[in-house]
C-alpha cells in the first residue's frame, strides 16, 4: 500500500477541531436513498463475467483477499498454517498468486510474521479492543502499538459506534487520529461496522469521518455482528472514497469484510469497483476482501477455468 501524502484541503483538515464543524459537514453530505442504492447494487450484480474476464477477476480477487481468522480458539499452529496458505494458496499450481494479507488477532501476529517475512504478503491485525471497541482509549492504543511492534504492517481498528450513533463525532474522530498516530508506518483500516450503523446516510458519514481523520482504508465490518459486508454498503463507501479523492486528492482504500463466500460474490464486488470508482481501485493496494472461506471457492473456480472440470472441496486445503 502506498499512502499518498497530499494533505486534505485546509478547510477539510480543520473540521476535526470542532464538534460543530464536523457535524455540520457530515450532515451536509448528500443523502442516500436506500431503495435506489440497493437497486444500483443489484443491477451491477447482474453483469455476466465469463471466460477471460472471469480468469482475470479470480486472480485479482485472490490477490485482494485478507485471509482472516479471528477466533477465540486461534492457536500459533492454526495461524501458521493459514499464513502458509496465504503464500501458496494452490500448492498444485505455482502460477496462482498469493493473497493480499493475513489478518489475525494481535497475540497471533508474531507467529504469522515468521512465516510471511519478506514474502510481500501483508500482515494485518485487528486492534483497538476488537470487535466492540468498548475499552478505554489508552488500552486501544496500547493494543495497536503492540500489534505493530510484533510485526503487523496493517492495523484494522473499530470505530466507537456508540459515540458515533450518539452524535459524538469528535470523539470518534480523535480516536482514529490517535490510533493512526499509534500505527506509525503501519496502514490503518478503519472498521465502520456498518451493520450497526442502521442507515446508508450513516455509512456515508462514518466513511467521511474515517477518511478525514486519516484512515488509509475504510472497512465495512468486524464479521462479528449479524450483518456484515453487503453490496449496497460497499457501493456507498466506494462513492465516498471517490468523492473524497475528488475533494482532497488523497486516495483511500475500501475493504468489505464478512459474508463474502463465493467467487460469484467477489466478482460482483469487482464489477462494482470497476464501474463506481474505476481501475485506480482495482488493485490490492486499494481494495481488499476480508474473508476466510472465499479463497477456496476462488481456487476451485480457478481450477475449473484452467482444467475445464469442476473440482470439489476435498482437493483444496482447509486451513
Amino acid at each position: 500500500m502506498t499512502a499518498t501524502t497530499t494533505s486534505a484541503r485546509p478547510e477539510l483538515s480543520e473540521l476535526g477541531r470542532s464538534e460543530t464543524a464536523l457535524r455540520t459537514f457530515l450532515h451536509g453530505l448528500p443523502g442516500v436513498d436506500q431503495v435506489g442504492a440497493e437497486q444500483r447494487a443489484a443491477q451491477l450484480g447482474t453483469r455476466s463475467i465469463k471466460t477471460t474476464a472471469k480468469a482475470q477477476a479470480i486472480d485479482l480477487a485472490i490477490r485482494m483477499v485478507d485471509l482472516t481468522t479471528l477466533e477465540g480458539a486461534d492457536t500459533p499452529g492454526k495461524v501458521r498454517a493459514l499464513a502458509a496458505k496465504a503464500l501458496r494458496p494452490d500448492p498444485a499450481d505455482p502460477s496462482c498468486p498469493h493473497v493480499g494479507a493475513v489478518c489475525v488477532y494481535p497475540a497471533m501476529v508474531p507467529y504469522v510474521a515468521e512465516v510471511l517475512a519478506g514474502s510481500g504478503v501483508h500482515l494485518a491485525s485487528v486492534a483497538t479492543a476488537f470487535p466492540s471497541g468498548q475499552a478505554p482509549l489508552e488500552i486501544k492504543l496500547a493494543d495497536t502499538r503492540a500489534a505493530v511492534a510484533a510485526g503487523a504492517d496493517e492495523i484494522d481498528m473499530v470505530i466507537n459506534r456508540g459515540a458515533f450513533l450518539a452524535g459524538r463525532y469528535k470523539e470518534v474522530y480523535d480516536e482514529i487520529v490517535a490510533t493512526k498516530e499509534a500505527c506509525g508506518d503501519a496502514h490503518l483500516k478503519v472498521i465502520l461496522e456498518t451493520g450497526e450503523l442502521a442507515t446508508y446516510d450513516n455509512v456515508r458519514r462514518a466513511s467521511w469521518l474515517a477518511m478525514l481523520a486519516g484512515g488509509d482504508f475504510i472497512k465495512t465490518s468486524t464479521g462479528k455482528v449479524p450483518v456484515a459486508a453487503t453490496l449496497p454498503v460497499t457501493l456507498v463507501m466506494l462513492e465516498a472514497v471517490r468523492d473524497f479523492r475528488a475533494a482532497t486528492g488523497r486516495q483511500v482504500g475500501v475493504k468489505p469484510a464478512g459474508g463474502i463466500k463465493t467467487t460469484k460474490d467477489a466478482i460482483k464486488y469487482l464489477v462494482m469497483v470497476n464501474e463506481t470508482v474505476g481501475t485506480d481501485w482495482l488493485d490490492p493496494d486499494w481494495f481488499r476482501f476480508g474473508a476466510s472461506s472465499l479463497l477456496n471457492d476462488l481456487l476451485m473456480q480457478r481450477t475449473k477455468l484452467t482444467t475445464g472440470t469442476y473440482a470439489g472441496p476435498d482437493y483444496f486445503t482447509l486451513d
Partner: protein
Amino acid sequence: MFEYAPAPESRSVVDLKPSYGLFIDGKFVDPTDGGSFKSINPASEEVLAEIAEAGAEDVERAVRAARKAYDKVWGPMPGRDRAKYLFRIARLIQERSRELAVLESLDNGKPIRESRDVDLPLVAAHFFYYAGWADKLGHAGFGSNPQPIGVAAQVIPWNFPLLMLAWKIAPALAAGNTVVLKPAETTPLTALLFAEICQQAELPAGVVNIVTGAGDTGRALVEHPGVDKVAFTGSTEVGRAIARSVAGTRKKLTLELGGKAANIVFDDAPIDQAVEGIVNGIFFNQGHVCCAGSRLLVQENVADRVLESLKRRMAQLRVGDPLDKNTDVGAINSAAQLERIRELSDAGSAEGAERWSPPCELPDRGFWFAPTIFTGVTQAHRIAREEIFGPVLSVLTFRTPAEAVEKANNTPYGLSAGIWTDKGSRILWMADRLRAGVVWANTFNKFDPTSPFGGYKESGYGREGGRHGLEGYLNV
C-alpha cells in the same frame, strides 16, 4: 484493467420461421392480397422474417372473427373462466420468457438485460394482475354489473412490443372484450409468438386476432365500423389523427401518446441515486420511452456537480450488441428513427446547445446512436420541446421550486415527471403542481401492473394499469 469478455445470450432458444401469416380466428392465415414486408434486426440489419401485410379485407376478416367470438364465446363466458385463460397465458409467458426475451431483443434492438429483467417480468405480471379482475369486475368501482364494450381495435408501438401488447390485451380480455391488435411494423415478432401462446393456452378462436402491417393496416383497423373501442399507444401526431377519425362515432377511445418529461433535481437530492435516475430516465431502452426523462432540470447551485457525476456515469454505459448480457444501451429501432434522432440532435447543436457524448465505439452495421447530453439548453430550443425518442438528454437549470414547476409544465405534453429531493414536503408540493400523469419522486421509470399509467394534455387520455385500466374496456 478489467475488460468484460463478450457474454452473448444464445439465439438458439428462438425458432424463427422464414415467414409469418396473420393470426385470425385462432389460425395463422395468408393475407388476402399476399402483401408482405420484412422485419429486420436493427443491430445488424439482418432480415429476421417475412411478415404478412394485412389489407382492408384481412382487417375485415379479423374484426368479424372478433365479433363472432365476442357474441358467441367470450362475452357470455363467466368471468372466472376468462380468468383461467388469462392465468394460463401468464404462466405460458413465464415458461417461455427466455425465448420471448431473446426474440424481443432481436427484433427491437433493446438490451437482453432489459427484455429479460424488465419487459418479460412485467408482461407476465400484467396478465396475472388482470386475470384476477375478470371475475371481480363488479367490485372495481364501475357499478355492480359492468359490461364489456365489444370488439377492441388496438394499435401498439415498437418500443416495448410485448409489454404494450400486454397492457392492451390483458385488461381488454379480462373485461370481456375481444381484440384485433396491430403490432408495429418494425417489431411484429413477439406478438406473433404471443399468438402461438394463445393457441397453446387454447384460448377460444377469435378472442385475440393479430394483424401485422404498417400505417394503412392500422388506419383500416381503427376506422373499421365494426369496432367498438380503439386503444392506441404511439405518437401524438397519429393519436390526433385517430381522435379525429373516431369523431362522431360511438367508439370509445384511449390514447397513450408522447411526452417530454422533466426530471427535476434539487440541491438536497440524494445525488448518486439522482444520477442513476437521470441515466435510467433517458438511456433506458435507448430513450425509446414515451415517459423518458428527456429534460433534466437541475438546480443551478448543484448543476456542475450533477453534470460531472452524470458524465462520469455515462462513460460507464456499455453500448452495443443487444444480446450481450452486459449491454446497457442497444440499437436504435429503425433507420427512420435514427434519422429523426440525428436531425433533432443536429438542430440542438445548430441552435447553440453544447453537445457531449462519452467516448464509445459503435458497431459498423445496424442503427446506433451514442448516449448524448446537451447543456446550455433553453426552453426555446427544439430539443427542449420536441420528443426525440432517443438517448438524448437536454439539460436546463432552475433556481427555485416555482421556476422548476413552471418550466416542467411548459410543454403541450404531460405524461410523467421526476422529482429528486430529500425534503418530503417539497416532493408533495411539487407533485401537486406538476401536470403529469405519473410523478416519480426519488425514482424514475418504474412500472407496475397495479399502477395506472397515462398522460395529461397532449400525452393522451385514459389510463392503463391498475383498477383504472379496466375503465377503458367497460361500458361505464
